[in-house]
C-alpha cells in the first residue's frame, strides 16, 4: 500500500518541526520598508520532523538505484559509488570552506584540485585541464567555446559549422548550437564506424570541428579514428572528444593519442561519483597545446615554492572565462579524486578491462540466448546494443515493453531508444563493478521476458506490475500540465 500523498497533503496550519525554528526576533526586520517585504507567508508545507523523515524515507524507497539494483543504463556508467569518496568530500574542512576564502586558507582544497588536474591530464594525454564545468554538457560548451575562440583568435571567421556523427548524444548538437554553430551530421556505417567518405565530403573551410565519442555511442571502438583526425585536421577543424565513454578505455588509450584537441570527462560516470537522481556531475575539460590559452577559469596552478593559486582571467586573458559563480562542483571533484587515489595507477587500467569484459560476456550470453546484437561482428566496448525490432514487428512487444517488464524483475532497464539510429534498441552498460552473477541474472530475466512475450505478449505490454505505480501516462502529463501543487 504505497502512499501517494505529497508533502503538502500532510501539512496543517501551524504545524511545524519546532526544533528547527529559531526563536522569534521581534523587530529584526523593522529597518526594511513594508513595500519590500512579503505580505503573505509562502505556501510551504507545515509538517513535523517525523513527518518529513518518514515521507522522504518512504519516497526514497520508491527509487531504483545502484545501491539497490543492477542498473545497466547505457552511456551512464552506473558503477559503484564508493562511500569512502563520499566521506572524503564530507570532511568538515571541505564542506565548510567558503568559495571565496583566500588562498592562504585554502591550500588543502587547492592541493586536491591540482592533484586531480594532473591525474586527468595524464589519463587523457592532454596538456591542460580545467575542472570548472559542472557536467558533461557544460564541459562540451567550454570545449566548443574554446574551439571557437581558437578560430577567432586566428581570424578564421568562416568556420561556422560543427560536425557530429548521426549517433551522437543530444548534448553535442545542442552545445554546438549554443555556441552559435550550425550542426551537420555525419552518417555512421553498418558496422558502427563513421563513414569516412561522407566525412571527407562534409568537411571544408566552414568546419570548426567534429565532436565525437570513442568508443562511440554505438558501443564500438571507432577504428578509423586516426583517419578521421587527419581529415578534420587537414580541413582546419579541431577534434572534440566527448568523454562520456571514457570508462571503456580508461588507462588503455589516451584520447590525446587519438588526435583529439579538446575533451570533457564525465566524472559522474568514469570517476564513480554518484548521480544523485539527476546530478550533480562534473565535466572537466582537457586541451592540447593549442587551446591552453582559452581554458575556462578558475583553475589551480602551483608556484615554485609549492604554493597553490587560482588562475583567473587576469592571468589568462584569452580564457573563455568563468561559466559559473565559483569553481565548479567542488564536492564532486573531491569525490573523483578520492576514487582516483583508491584506484591508483594500476587500478585505472582495470576499469577499462573489466568493464569491457563484462560487456562482452553479457553480449555473448545474450546472443547465445537468441537476442539480436546491433553489431554482431564487432567487439563490444564497455557497452553494446541489442535491438528488439523483430519482437516489435512480429509481436508488437517493443524495447520499451521489455524495459518496463525488467523493472518487475528488480533490474533497472538499460538505456532505450538511444542511439536514435538503431530501432527498438537497448544500450546496455553493465560496468566493471558488477559480478558475473548479476550479469547472469540479467540474461535469465530477459530470457524469461522473451518467453512471456511469446506466450502472452499483453502481459509484457502491461508491465510493470510490482512497482509503486503501473505504466504512467506521459501524454496526459504533457497535455494537462500539472507542474506544481496547488492545493
Amino acid at each position, binding site marked *: 500500500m504505497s502512499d501517494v500523498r*505529497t508533502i*503538502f497533503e500532510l501539512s496543517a496550519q501551524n504545524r511545524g518541526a519546532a526544533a528547527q525554528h*529559531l526563536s*522569534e526576533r521581534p523587530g529584526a*526586520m523593522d*529597518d526594511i520598508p513594508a*513595500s519590500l*517585504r512579503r505580505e503573505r507567508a509562502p505556501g*510551504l*508545507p*507545515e509538517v513535523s520532523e517525523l513527518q518529513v*523523515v518518514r515521507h*522522504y524515507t518512504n519516497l*526514497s524507497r520508491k527509487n*531504483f538505484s545502484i545501491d539497490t539494483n543492477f542498473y545497466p543504463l547505457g552511456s551512464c556508467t*552506473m558503477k559503484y559509488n564508493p562511500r569512502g569518496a563520499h566521506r572524503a568530500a564530507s*570532511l568538515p*574542512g571541505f*564542506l*565548510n*570552506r*567558503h*568559495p571565496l576564502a583566500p588562498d592562504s586558507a*585554502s591550500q588543502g582544497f587547492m592541493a586536491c584540485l591540482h592533484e586531480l588536474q594532473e591525474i586527468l591530464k595524464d*589519463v587523457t594525454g592532454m596538456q591542460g585541464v580545467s575542472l570548472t564545468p*559542472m*557536467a558533461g*554538457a*557544460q564541459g562540451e560548451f567550454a570545449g566548443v567555446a574554446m574551439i*571557437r575562440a581558437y578560430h577567432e583568435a586566428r581570424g578564421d571567421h568562416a568556420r561556422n559549422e560543427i560536425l557530429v556523427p548521426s549517433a551522437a548524444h543530444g*548534448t553535442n548538437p545542442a552545445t554546438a*548550437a549554443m555556441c*552559435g554553430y550550425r*550542426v551537420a551530421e555525419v552518417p555512421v556505417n553498418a558496422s558502427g564506424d563513421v563513414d569516412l567518405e561522407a566525412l571527407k565530403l562534409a568537411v571544408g573551410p566552414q568546419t570548426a570541428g567534429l565532436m565525437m565519442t570513442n568508443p562511440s555511442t554505438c558501443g564500438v571502438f571507432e577504428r578509423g*579514428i586516426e583517419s578521421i583526425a587527419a581529415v578534420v585536421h587537414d580541413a582546419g577543424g579541431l577534434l572534440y572528444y566527448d568523454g562520456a565513454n571514457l570508462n571503456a578505455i580508461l588507462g588503455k588509450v589516451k584520447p590525446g593519442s587519438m588526435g583529439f584537441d579538446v575533451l570533457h570527462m564525465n566524472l559522474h560516470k568514469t570517476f564513480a561519483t554518484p548521480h*544523485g*537522481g*539527476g*546530478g*550533480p556531475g562534473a565535466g572537466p575539460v582537457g586541451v592540447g597545446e593549442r587551446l591552453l590559452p582559452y581554458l575556462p577559469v578558475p583553475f589551480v596552478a602551483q608556484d615554485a615554492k609549492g604554493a597553490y593559486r587560482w588562475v583567473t582571467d587576469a592571468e589568462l586573458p584569452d580564457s*573563455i572565462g568563468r561559466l*559559473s*559563480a565559483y569553481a*565548479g562542483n567542488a*564536492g564532486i571533484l573531491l569525490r573523483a579524486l578520492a576514487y582516483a587515489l*583508491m*584506484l591508483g*595507477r594500476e587500478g585505472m587500467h582495470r576499469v577499462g578491462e573489466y568493464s569491457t*569484459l563484462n560487456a562482452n560476456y553479457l553480449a*555473448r550470453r545474450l546472443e547465445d540466448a537468441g537476442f539480436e546484437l546491433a553489431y554482431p561482428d564487432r*567487439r563490444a566496448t564497455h557497452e553494446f546494443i541489442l535491438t528488439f525490432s523483430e519482437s516489435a514487428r512480429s509481436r508488437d512487444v517493443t524495447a520499451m515493453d521489455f524495459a518496463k517488464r525488467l523493472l518487475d524483475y528488480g533490474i*533497472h*532497464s538499460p538505456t532505450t531508444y538511444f542511439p536514435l539510429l538503431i530501432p527498438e534498441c537497448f544500450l546496455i552498460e553493465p560496468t566493471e*563493478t558488477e559480478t558475473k552473477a548479476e550479469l547472469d541474472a540479467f540474461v535469465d530475466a530477459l530470457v524469461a521476458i522473451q518467453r512471456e512475450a511469446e506466450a502472452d505478449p499483453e502481459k509484457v505490454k502491461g508491465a510493470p506490475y510490482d512497482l509503486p505505480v503501473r505504466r*504512467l501516462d*506521459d501524454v*496526459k502529463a504533457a497535455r494537462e500540465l*500539472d*507542474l*506544481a501543487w496547488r492545493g
Partner: protein
Amino acid sequence: MPFIPHTAEEVQVMLSQIGVARTEDLFDEIPQNLRAGALSSVPAGASELEMLRKLGARAALDESVVCFAGAGSYDHHIPAAVWDLTSRGEFMTAYTPYQAEASQGTLQLIYEYQSMMTALTGLDVSNASVYDGASGLAEAVLMAVRSNKKARSRTVLLPDSLHPHYAAAARNICRHQSVEFVGMALDHDGRVDLEALETDGPDEVCAVVVQQPNFFGMLEDVDALTDWAAERGGLVIAVVNPLALAVLKPPGEWGGSGADIACGEGQPLGVPMSSGGPAFGFICCRSALVRQLPGRVIGRTEDLTGKPGFTLTLQAREQHIRRGKATSNICTNQGLLVTAATIHMSLLGPVGLARIAEHCHANTRALVEALTAIDGVEARHQGPFFHERVLQLPRPADEVVAGLLERGILGGVALGAYHESMNHDLLVCATEKRTDDEIGRYAAALREVIAR
C-alpha cells in the same frame, strides 16, 4: 582490485564464453599504436584508510575559520535530517528518472520541489534545477531573448550591483547568441540609479535583470524597476536569494505585473558551502514561458489504473529530443541538491525559513553596529539592506582579511578585485549561526588588525 568483484575463476569462465583467451584480446580492434603507456602522474593505489588520511590532512588545513563571508554562499545551519535523508543510497545513486515507474521517489520529490519554488517566488512554474545561480542567470537571459518575440531589441540590462561572477558567467555563456548586454549604473548607495535610467536608459529593451538583495546586500526598488522594464517591453529577470524570499516580496508580485522569470542560487536551502559546489540553480517563470524553460520539468499524471504518479514532461524542449534546437544543452543537473533543498524547506516551513532570515538580518545588523563602532570603519551605503553589507575600512580590505584570518576569522569578501574604487571595501555577512560572542571576537580582531 578495488571495486572490481571478479575472481580469476570467473574471468576464465567469462573469457571462454566469449571465446577469447585473454581480456587483452577484447581490445584487438584498437590500433596498437594508440595504446597508453604508464600513468606517471597517478600515484599507486591507496586503501580507503590511506586516501582518507591524505585528504583528511588537507581538509584539516582549511578548517576552523569562523565565517563572516557571504557574497552568494552562506554559512547556514542545516538540520541533521536533511543530509541523513539526502545521502540515502536510493536518492544518491539513482540516475536521472528516465524510467518513471522505477523513479517515483525522485520524481515526486522534484514535483514537490517545483511546487515549493513557485510558492517562494510567486511564479507559476519551476524547472528541476540548473547548475548554479550564475549559469542559471545565463539560461534565464537566453529564455527571455527567445520568448520576448515582441521586442525588437536584443538588449539585456545588467545592473552594476549584480554579483560580478554572475555577470561574467552570463556574458560568457550568452556570448555566441548575439545578446547585447548593457550595464545599469548605481547610485551612491549601491543600488540601480533609477533616475539615470529614466533619463538615459534605452527606450526599448529585451530584458532587465534585477538582483534582490543585490551583490552589496542592498535592496533595490524592485517595484519601480519592474514597472520601468514593463513599460519598455522588457521582461524582468529576478535574481533572488531563496531564503530572503521567506521575508521579502516575491518576484511574482514585483511592480504592477510581476517579474517574468526568477532565478538564483539554491545553496542557502540546505546545501553546505563546499567551496561553491555542488549546489543548484533554480529557474521559475510564468506559465506562458514554460516551453522556454531549460532542463528537466516534472509533471503529475496517472498510471493506467488512474493512480497518481509523476514523470518527466515537456521533453520536447530538451537536448535528447530536440538536439540542435533544444532550449539548452543541459542534461545532468543538480538533482541531489534539490533533494536536500526540498527536505530542508519541508523541515523549516514558512515559519522556520522566516526565522532564519530574521536571525541572519539581526546578526548582520549587530555585526555592522559592532564593527562601525571602530574608528575609521563605516557602512558604505545607506538604505535598506538584507543580511549583508559593505563596510569601508581605513586600510585595504584584502590586507585586513589576511590579518583577520590569522585570528581565525574569515572576515568577509574584499571587493577590490571586483571594483577598483572599492579597494577598502569589505562585504560582510553574519548568518544565524554566528553568535554574539563570535561577533565580539570579530570586532576585537578587527580593532587589532586596523591598529597594526
